[in-house]
């Protein structure tokens, strides 16, 4: 048993875990959207997407430090907002560049090839960032008030409220984009059947660029969210969230945008509740440091038991 946790009413504890789960889940949702949009059109798992998140966090770190040095009078939230802009400005061209040089030539190649390339790109991104930022953990500056807000025993920080609100806004905007606009119709058509869509006059390359671009923008934003929430930035920080986000996308049904949003939240809840309760459940044999395993177990369970995911199309063949 962890000795230093304050005792709270079980219901409050449960609600706190739910809140934590929703917060971390919305982060997974945003990253999962990037995976699912690319997969829906190209059938490619963009292995490097998690590292784009990391690059976003690094860009935000650099920008915030720069702004705080050049303009020390600037209020924290403004620095944070500009860092987000910086992260997006860095991530989107980077992701489009990767698409152009590494994935587009392999558009017609057998499926193993782009996957291996993506792994190589992921490794290269991590290494390049390691060269410029070193192997150490960097501290992300506190730009918003750090005092957590208490409400009937539930604790939430300002950063986390911002994360929840921003994620919700982004998801609503993306849903509106996909449903109500011409561009969204193009994306839906292309993800349903790229060849027929191109026959109908849709430029597949443009849609791919759009998918990568939106995904990268969300990734940049998520990088800043992670950095602000955990106050730590590290060259390897994108890998685990990336993998979990992919799990979320599969859980929701890969290729399905709403599935990604839904799957992310569910995964966040599963992880938070699981980490909170697994100690007592297994008599302390498994502790909360096994938290990362939850995502993998969920992934394996989903792919074994319900490969369509909760909302999507079949991803496994009949044996």
């Amino acid at each position: 048993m962890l000795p230093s946790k304050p005792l709270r009413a079980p219901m409050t504890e449960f609600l706190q875990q739910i809140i934590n789960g929703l917060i971390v889940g919305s982060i997974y949702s945003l990253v999962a959207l990037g995976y699912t949009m690319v997969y829906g059109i190209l059938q490619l798992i963009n292995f490097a997407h998690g590292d784009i998140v990391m690059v976003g966090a690094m860009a935000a770190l650099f920008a915030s430090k720069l702004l705080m040095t050049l303009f020390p009078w600037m209020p924290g939230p403004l620095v944070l907002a500009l860092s987000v802009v910086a992260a997006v400005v860095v991530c989107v061209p980077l992701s489009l560049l990767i698409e152009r040089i590494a994935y587009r030539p392999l558009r017609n190649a057998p499926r193993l090839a782009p996957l291996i390339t993506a792994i190589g790109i992921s490794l290269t991104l991590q290494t390049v960032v390691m060269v410029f930022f070193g192997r150490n953990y960097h501290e992300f500056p506190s730009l918003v008030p750090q005092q957590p807000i208490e409400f009937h025993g539930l604790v939430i920080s300002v950063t986390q409220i911002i994360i929840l609100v921003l994620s919700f806004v982004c998801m609503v905007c993306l849903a509106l984009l996909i449903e109500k606009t011409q561009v969204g119709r193009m994306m839906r058509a292309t993800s349903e059947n790229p060849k027929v869509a191109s026959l109908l006059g849709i430029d597949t390359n443009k849609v791919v660029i759009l998918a990568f671009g939106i995904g990268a923008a969300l990734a940049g934003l998520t990088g800043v969210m992670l950095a602000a929430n955990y106050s730590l930035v590290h060259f390897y920080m994108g890998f685990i969230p990336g993998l979990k986000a992919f799990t979320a996308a599969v859980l929701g049904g890969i290729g399905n945008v709403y599935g990604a949003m839904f799957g992310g939240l569910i995964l966040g809840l599963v992880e938070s509740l699981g980490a909170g309760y697994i100690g007592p459940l297994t008599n302390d044999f498994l502790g909360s440091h096994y938290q990362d395993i939850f995502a993998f177990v969920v992934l394996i369970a989903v792919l074994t038991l319900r490969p369509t995911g909760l909302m999507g199309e079949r991803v496994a063949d009949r044996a």
Partner: protein
Amino acid sequence: MKAIKPVHLALILVLLILPPIVGTAGGAWVRILDFALLYILLALGLNIVVGFAGLLDLGFIAFYAVGAYLYALLSSPHLSEQFAWIAAMSPEGMHVPIWISIPIAGLLAGVFGILLGAPTLKLRGDYLAIVTLGFGEIVRIFLNNLNAPVNITNGPQGISQIDPISVLGVSLAGERGVVDFWGFSVSSVVAYYYLFLILTAVAILVCFRLVDSRIGRAWVAIREDEIAAKAMGINTRNMKLLAFSAGAVFGGISGSLFASFQGFVSPESFTLFESIVVLAMVVLGGLGNIWGVVIGAAMLAAIPEALRLIVIPVQEAILGPGNAVIDAEVARQLLYGLAMVVIMLWRPSGLISSVANRPKGKAAVQTTNEEPVVPELVTLNAKI
């Protein structure tokens, strides 16, 4: 067996006298040769899974870890220190002879191969990759955390004081690093080199026999077109499980060799990066081509070590002393990452393609104008 040409004999001779030659530059270089041979063994194992059977396994290092840890547990004082009943049986620490512990390590790894392969049988290429990656990470996390409440793996600190291999009573670690047997005196790393060389030769022989057998042909059939293979009567489920476990056995045995060679194992040696390294070796060499994989593994194991010597001096010559930006470890990672990207873009069938012998005139079905079809990369699981 193909006819043995003088070139082959010359090559064998070079391999046999390599250590003393390399050893004049220092024992560290012979150690590099030893690790290169271990990587070759690993790459041969992964080649069975990815190259022959077409199952992209990103968690292969888990089998390496299982073999290494099992050997470590059976040949070190750790278990005797943790459990009183084991200490009662063997107070000096467990010293299971290698003739038992290495096969058991391979066997357990094979069982793990089946366990980890079983949930993946229905999955398509990308999902198989991610799930196997997940399994690799799960194994590593367990190894890192199984030190409470019962200390089995000693967590992040790892297991040390592992027995070196002893052949015919002669320990290969020797006295002060020098092994004496029958009047000959070689350094420990050289002795290990010959041991690994023999085992690698056996492994290569096994691979060649496998590829020419019914099992090997079944694997290649599954790789090329699983549905057609099933239609031909191949039990794809069993063959896939067999591929996983065969590759895992290779991994487990090389893991136990690694544990005995290094004398120490910790979860740090079995990260996802190592899985990717072995995959890079197989991809570079040419998926499915045994000699290609051997060469690819040897190159990707040896080049970073050679780079280690020149990376810093070259940068200091250009940028000035103390301004080196890329150190040897970074160069190694960069090499692997870029190698995978470049190989896939430029020559996806690897250095030595297993279709290299196809007559040039024949144009098989062309999918694009730039690339001829690369059969070993075709996974016919298109959306219907």
